[in-house]
């Protein structure tokens, strides 16, 4: 145990995801030896985050204004919405440069063990968007794990009653540049059942 504020700093850092006690200690001592201006800048940023980060009114992505950059962009197709769990998933899809539509960030996935149901996610906002805008396709891009699949199933059940709306799910399958022989059975099984004609 260190004395006073140093230990406080280590304890706080240690509560962050992916940071163990040893890493927390290393970061703390790195901060102690760095330029006070750097620390002040970090503190200011944290202060701004604490005051409240703005989320896009339309899609729920982190934003600087009322609407995020993507929702303000006139060139993006307004009739295709890609539904993702978190803001970081928007970045992941954006990096592909393949998608020209807009996004909807749910803020998580159905997870009853952590008390997350549809009310805790931005489901209602999604339904409102679909009923008012001229949306023709919803792409469900939740994570391919138990909770993400459950969320996808829920969305399909809710969205299938909208007339003229196409609901699609990201294909799951083999990673590019990988070896077939090293693929696990679950992934390969999915890839096989989701195969397509050429």
């Amino acid at each position, binding site marked *: 145990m260190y004395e006073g504020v140093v230990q406080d700093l280590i304890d706080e850092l240690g509560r962050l995801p992916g940071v163990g006690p040893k890493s927390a200690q290393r970061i703390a001592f790195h901060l102690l030896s760095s330029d006070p201006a750097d620390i002040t800048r970090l503190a200011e940023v944290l202060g701004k985050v604490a005051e409240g980060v703005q989320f896009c009114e339309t899609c729920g992505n982190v934003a600087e204004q009322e609407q995020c950059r993507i929702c303000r962009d006139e060139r993006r197709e307004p009739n295709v919405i890609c539904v993702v769990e978190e803001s970081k998933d928007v970045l992941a899809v954006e990096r592909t440069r393949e998608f020209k539509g807009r996004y909807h960030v749910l803020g998580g996935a159905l*997870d009853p063990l952590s008390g997350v149901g549809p009310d805790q996610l931005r489901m209602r906002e999604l339904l409102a968007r679909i009923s008012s805008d001229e949306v023709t396709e919803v792409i469900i891009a939740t994570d391919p794990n138990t909770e993400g699949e459950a969320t996808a199933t*829920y969305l399909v059940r809710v969205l299938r009653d909208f007339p003229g709306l196409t609901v699609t799910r990201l294909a799951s399958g083999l990673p590019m540049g990988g070896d077939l022989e090293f693929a696990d059975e679950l992934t390969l099984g999915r890839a096989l059942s989701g195969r397509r004609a050429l």
Partner: protein
Amino acid sequence: MHLRHLQLTDFRSWEHADLELGQGPIVLIGRNGKGKTNVLEAVGYLATLGSHRVSSDTPLVRHERERALIRAAVVNGDRELVVELEISPGKSNRARINRGAVGRPRDVLGIVHTVLFAPEDLSLVKGDPAERRRFLDDLLVQRSPRYAGIRSEYDRVLRQRNALLKSTGKRGARAAADDPYALSTLAVWDSQLAELGAQLLAARLDLVADLAPHTAAAYDGIAGSPGGEPDKSAGITYRSSLGSALPADYGTPEGQRADVDILIKALGDAVVESRESELERGVSLIGPHRDDLEITLGGSPAKGYASHGESWSLALALRLASYELLRDEAGEPILLLDDVFAELDRHRRARLAEVASRAEQVFVTAAVDEDVPGELTGVRYTVDEGRLVRE
């Protein structure tokens, strides 16, 4: 298949153990608590990624060490693979095949097959349904490794669904069962449960269908007097929480192979029917996690009716049947006989020894020499104070 080399580091009581192995029997002799069973447990872990003695990984690591290492050179036909498993409780375990890292430890399943006989086997007959479900699932995973993933995903869905049933049911089961909003969320987990549950259920039914003839034959061999037929025959039947909604000829040797789509529908319907009682009790009442394998002797359930000796014969028959099944399908498994001869009478001993002596590789542990049948003379090690001494 057989192990050519086995190396343990900080596994259980072994700080370090290094064994050059060959085909045939390998006999480990030593007093209790010296670590004989730990060697067998390590070999079994390669095949199932679990221990037959404990459910968590923590006790597998030597006291005050962070991780344990099992390394084995596995010979299957003329192919040799080196499998390494690093067990670190609290973190994720790691695996390597031929020194190359694989994505998940699960990927090594299917390389090593084992069938283990242990004194705990008696609970297959006398114990809770959970013991028999574990027996089926462990065998299933050896038969077809992809079920390891399906089973763990099913468990996850089950935990999520139970959490939801509990929180929704708090408001009163009847009120919740009439609330369309609560039902629509529950329906999502219903369909996940039905889809994964049906795959697990179908695989278990087919397994029981294939295992039943082997079990009956093995029991005849063990319990029949020399030259004569036994007076009772052994049978196994899968008891599903679906009850009569399960097609009657599923899971029987003469019947059909189980159809996953039919089972998805059956599970889905059954879940809807038991909605209110599930909400009342806050747990999932339908699904393979509530099923059982019924073991019968002469038509009556073995649990409660069979004598101690008959129960032992049945437990042995189930293990021998697993051995025959794996041998037919996946290549000859390694036999692990953990202190089991001391528990058996002369006739059962002789029968087990006869099978074991023909196996490609068999590990035997015993406290004293007299417990090892004469057929199983092979390489002998004495185990003492953290050392293995070859005789």
